């Protein structure tokens, strides 16, 4: 049985669903369409198969996710990842946090930011711009959200323009969504060795 991961990590985990994913052999046409399953592409993750229980949401989610995280202009990629990390720390989504810490480290070719977050969590000490981004993400992710005008001013003073702030709001908000799927519907587990 796969071992559950209980602490934040940058190592990519696997994900074990808490509900039964859609069985591809029993999938409806709408589900197969949403999953983009073709005879040459039948490899679908358990996570996506789980979300296939709600086809209409699944079909919108991927283009929306990609637009928020990857569209050109505005906030740079690694800083959108930092917004995702702040949300994932606050919501304690170990899976999302690992994936996006890993991506941040790859994009920055540096682990110092994520090392600090791994060591100190919400109290991590970062450079002034990263600190402003991380703190904003933590506050926006709270319930209720705890952001105010002073936080916007803080982001401006840290050097973010309005387009960048909008992208930070979007990437942080998006992980209020993603965390509540990943962390609620399944568990992060250690990747098993795959010799194939």
């Amino acid at each position, binding site marked *: 049985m796969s071992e559950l991961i209980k602490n934040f990590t940058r190592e990519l985990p696997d994900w074990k669903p808490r509900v039964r994913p859609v069985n591809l052999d029993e999938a409806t046409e709408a589900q197969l369409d949403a999953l983009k399953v073709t005879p040459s592409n039948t490899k679908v993750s358990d996570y996506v198969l789980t979300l296939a229980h709600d086809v209409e949401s699944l079909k919108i989610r991927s283009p929306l996710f990609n637009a928020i995280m990857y569209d050109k202009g505005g906030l740079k990629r690694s800083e959108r990842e930092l917004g995702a990390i702040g949300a994932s720390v606050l919501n304690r989504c170990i899976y999302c946090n690992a994936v996006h810490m890993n991506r941040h480290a790859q994009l920055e070719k540096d682990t110092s930011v994520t090392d600090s977050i791994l060591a100190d969590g919400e109290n991590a000490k970062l450079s002034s711009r990263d600190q402003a981004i991380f703190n904003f993400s933590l506050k926006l992710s709270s319930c209720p959200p705890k952001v105010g005008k002073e936080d916007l001013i803080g982001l401006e003073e840290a050097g973010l323009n309005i387009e960048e702030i*909008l992208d930070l709001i979007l990437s942080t908000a998006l992980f209020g969504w993603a*965390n509540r799927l990943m962390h609620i519907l399944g568990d992060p587990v250690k990747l098993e060795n795959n010799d194939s």
Partner: protein
Amino acid sequence: MDALDTTTLRAAGLKGSLSAAAALQQRANILHLTQKAEAAVLRPKDFGAYNHELRHALAGRICNLNGDQITADQYSGNAGTYADLIDPGNDGGNYDLEQLVNFIDKVATRPSDVTEEDIKTLQKAGVQDPDIVRLSELNSFMAYQIRLIAGLRLFKEYES
């Protein structure tokens, strides 16, 4: 449809805002997709065990749990016979939905505390796995929209 004429911007009070307009226009595709995602969770064709009225009531409830009555009011008009569930003080008992409401509230307010036991409790109460996923999508989308609105309101606040 005007991509900027969305529930999100109406609730943020930002339609026509000057300073944010260019940035919002640059991300109009995201706002348009957000509106489509809202339709997918609030008014899906395949709604499973939870009809559109109950979904609107739960959406309004989640807004209220996040202290956002303005957005709650945008959903309350379509909550029909479930309108009283918008009040977080209602435990769902009058609809025999206590466990469902309890799950919705916990995911909305304390997602970090949710465990496998919470899912098992729903399953034992007879909630089918596809409906657990549908409920989670609704709750998750609302978490996104409420935070997007809260962030966008800062632009409005900044202008005033």
